[in-house]
């Protein structure tokens, strides 16, 4: 009787172990790109995050090693374009041992879910991340309708 239960227990234990491993496998598969390095020689456009926060949209883009003069942001209605170039120069008089970081020119464009007020857009750069705050335009905001 006792041995029977402990065997079942062991069996469930083994199944749990298997399930955990499968979970981990799928997590790795799903999330791998979230944690990949930023710019590489093969991928040459910045990765972005998009958030909606009340009256604002927020866009974040990974732009390591790009100065703000080399970035262009264009907005028209609900169209957003981020373009720029990343320059990776070998410093003078140095020889190269390893070169993984890729220089490139890039352009990414987005169709936003609603029109934004281009005049009030705020852009900030911090530690190689571009933060864009895009307030929705008045027409895109929800309106209260009073019933007569």
């Amino acid at each position, binding site marked *: 009787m006792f041995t029977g239960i402990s065997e079942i227990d062991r069996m469930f234990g083994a199944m749990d172990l298997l399930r955990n491993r499968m979970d981990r496998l799928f997590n790795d598969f799903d999330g791998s790109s979230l944690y990949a390095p930023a710019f590489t020689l093969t991928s040459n456009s910045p990765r972005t995050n998009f958030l909606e*926060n009340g009256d604002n949209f927020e866009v974040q883009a990974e732009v390591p090693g790009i100065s703000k003069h080399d970035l262009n942001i264009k907005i028209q209605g609900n169209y957003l374009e981020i373009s720029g170039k990343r320059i990776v120069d070998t410093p003078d008089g140095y020889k190269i041992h*390893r070169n993984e970081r890729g220089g490139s020119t890039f352009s990414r464009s987005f169709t936003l879910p609603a029109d934004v007020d281009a005049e009030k857009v705020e852009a900030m750069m911090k530690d*190689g*991340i571009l933060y864009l705050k895009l307030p929705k335009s008045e027409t895109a905001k929800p309106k209260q309708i009073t019933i007569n």
Partner: protein
Amino acid sequence: MSDRKDIAKKEEKSIEKTRELRSAIPTVDIYENDNEILLHADMPGVNKKDISVNIDNGTLSLSGVRRFDNKGVSKWEEFSDVEYVRSFSVPQSIDVERVEAELKDGVLKLHLPKSEVAKPKMIEIKAV
């Protein structure tokens, strides 16, 4: 039957799970001239205070953690919180005292100067 065991395993204790901090390998460029070895590593989103550079016994290890404090509904997410980790072997002739690091626009630049001469040290034995 007093020592009967639960057949079904208990669900893991933590109800609120925070997302595990994954580690990623930063891309690096390594250059060298007569005076120093220069290492550039992409670490976007990592604050200066969250970077650690360790040189120990010929191994240089870099670690940098970034965390975002995002509020609102995420429509898409292509990058996230991460710990950048990478280690390298460095020659013993690096002058550890004079290593300099700077962080600009998410790129860590590490200057590893070569020591002028490997100075032998005299060890004095004290009489007890």
